[in-house]
């Protein structure tokens, strides 16, 4: 069996997040694989539907919850359309985990600020649950999440759950015009809401993921709040085929996103050629 042959996984649960975004809960068909499979928050994998092909997604569930992985995807191309056709019980492929990860144990004792936009919440959600499952190891937890419209917010039930927790400060927002009459969150772009939330940078790190434009305008806000470049983490998702440093697609300069990433600090990103 070569490195390109995936494990088989069975769809255990299908959850619609938005009109075109869906989460699959996947269980390994081989109990021995399920037993030994392990990963760290921030890692990704190659998911495939036999006959349609392979696609790269983060593992959206946290490593603290064993026995399954979750994958959230938007139906865009051939593979994601085929993934959308799958029902509970159907079998697909998974290779991984690949790439580096968020340095979670080294963040014990710190506050964590999560900033996400749109489907960019998927990789951040993995870290959020990882942190919440080990809640006593961290200080303040702040989450700022935004989407274009209310309908575009993903993980709605979890947002509700986080919002109710006394140990989580949650700020949700939608772009101006994206609100509904009963919307109780903020209206405004993510960077502005981060400024409003003004989480303390003292003993804190930030985890940021979302569209490039959101990241671009969020970084200066975080810096103003006192987060230095080495304490801001993000995860990049360039197009990949192999996921293991060979196929030649994901490099930014001499950095291979699949193996040197996908998790980078803002300081590391600043040193890369401007080719994101």
């Amino acid at each position: 069996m070569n490195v390109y042959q995936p494990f088989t996984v069975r769809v255990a649960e299908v959850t619609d997040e938005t009109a075109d975004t869906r989460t699959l809960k996947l269980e390994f068909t081989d109990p021995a694989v399920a037993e030994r499979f392990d990963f760290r928050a921030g890692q990704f994998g190659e998911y495939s539907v036999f006959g349609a092909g392979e696609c790269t997604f983060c593992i959206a569930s946290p490593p603290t919850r064993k026995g399954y992985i979750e994958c959230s995807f938007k139906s865009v191309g051939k593979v994601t359309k085929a993934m959308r056709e799958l029902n509970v019980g159907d079998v697909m492929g998974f290779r991984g985990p690949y790439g580096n990860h968020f340095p979670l144990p080294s963040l014990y004792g710190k506050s964590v600020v999560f900033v996400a936009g749109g489907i960019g919440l998927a990789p951040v959600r993995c870290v959020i649950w990882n942190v919440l499952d080990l809640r006593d190891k961290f200080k303040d937890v702040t989450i700022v999440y935004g989407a274009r419209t209310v309908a575009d917010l993903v993980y709605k039930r979890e947002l509700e759950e986080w919002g109710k927790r006394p140990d989580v400060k949650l700020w949700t927002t939608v772009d101006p015009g994206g609100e509904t009459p009963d919307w109780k969150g903020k209206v405004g772009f993510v960077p502005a809401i981060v400024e409003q939330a003004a989480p303390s940078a003292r003993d804190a790190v930030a985890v940021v993921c979302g569209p490039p434009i959101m990241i671009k305008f969020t970084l200066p806000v975080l810096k103003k709040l006192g987060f230095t470049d080495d304490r801001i983490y993000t995860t990049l998702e360039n197009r990949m085929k192999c996921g293991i440093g060979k196929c030649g697609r994901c490099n930014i300069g001499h950095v291979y996103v699949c193996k040197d990433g996908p998790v980078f600090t803002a300081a590391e990103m600043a040193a890369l050629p401007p080719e994101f």
Partner: protein
Amino acid sequence: MMNATTISSSDLSGLAADLLAARVRVAGPARASDGTVEYRHAGAPAELVLDSGVPRRSLKEFFLPPTEPLFAWRTGAGGRVELLEAPLPADPAVVIGARPCDAAGIEALDKVMGWDYRDEPWFARREATTIVSLACAGFDRSCMCTSVGLAPDTTKGSDLLLVPIGGGAFRAEVVTAKGARLVAAYPARFRPASGEAEAEAFRKAAREKVAASAPPAADPLRPWLDAHFDHPLWREASLRCHGCGACAAVCPTCHCFDIVDEPETVGTGVRRRNWDTCQTPRFTIHASGHNPKNDQPARIRQRVLHKIVIYPKKFGEMLCTGCGRCSRACPGGMDLPEVLARIAALAGGAQ
């Protein structure tokens, strides 16, 4: 390891015959019916042509085929899916008459194929294949092996290097244990080493010939390239580019690939790896439509930098062996020696 032996042309043919008789696959430059010379599997020693210039395509397809199965799938009753492993390609083979630049390219690729995750199909072929190279006399003005730290007689990637010593004979330098095993397995085909002076003269003349027209060394250009990521140079170069990827197809070191599913019957199919190239517009496009390398200048830059900046930084060696094929194959007249000379001029002016 560097011991040597001698082999005559007729014994080289005889060696090929012995290998074929032992059911070892023999490959080397061979002329097709259209007159072009390509690396091919030979059915008989006479098919090999060793005095014919540079084969149009490189040796890499013997190790990384243009298309290869990674595994097959079969769906059964109740949605069961069975995956069938692709057998590892382990047929013993000997390449006779490889260009040293091609052999060097194969060794350079071992790094990317082996870092952390081992590409088993690649290494299965590597282990099963012995490469007998033929020192090159220098071919044409597209040759630039001396600009990338190699030479027409480089032993990099070869198990045995043949150097012409006149009279139709070759001095055979044993480069690796695998090369030594080949010599040991067919002792009747080899004679005691001779022609050291003749071999040295051949090698010296070839190096001088290539160096005379090759561009300046690529190594020292790295700091300038790092400091000038955005430069009009790439736009100028891209004006000649059709984005066809011929350069990558003929390149001994371009190794980018795609992974695709090919259904065969209802419920069965094969996942394959196919050659791909960074020169096509959609190579790096995201699902969102965002494309980090969204124009041809960015794609030309990627190809050149991958070879002389990125790979050396990552793996400590060039991803270009100076074979000159990209320049020969380009329908738009893109010329890598010219691009390097231009960069060298810019870098020189900047100092």
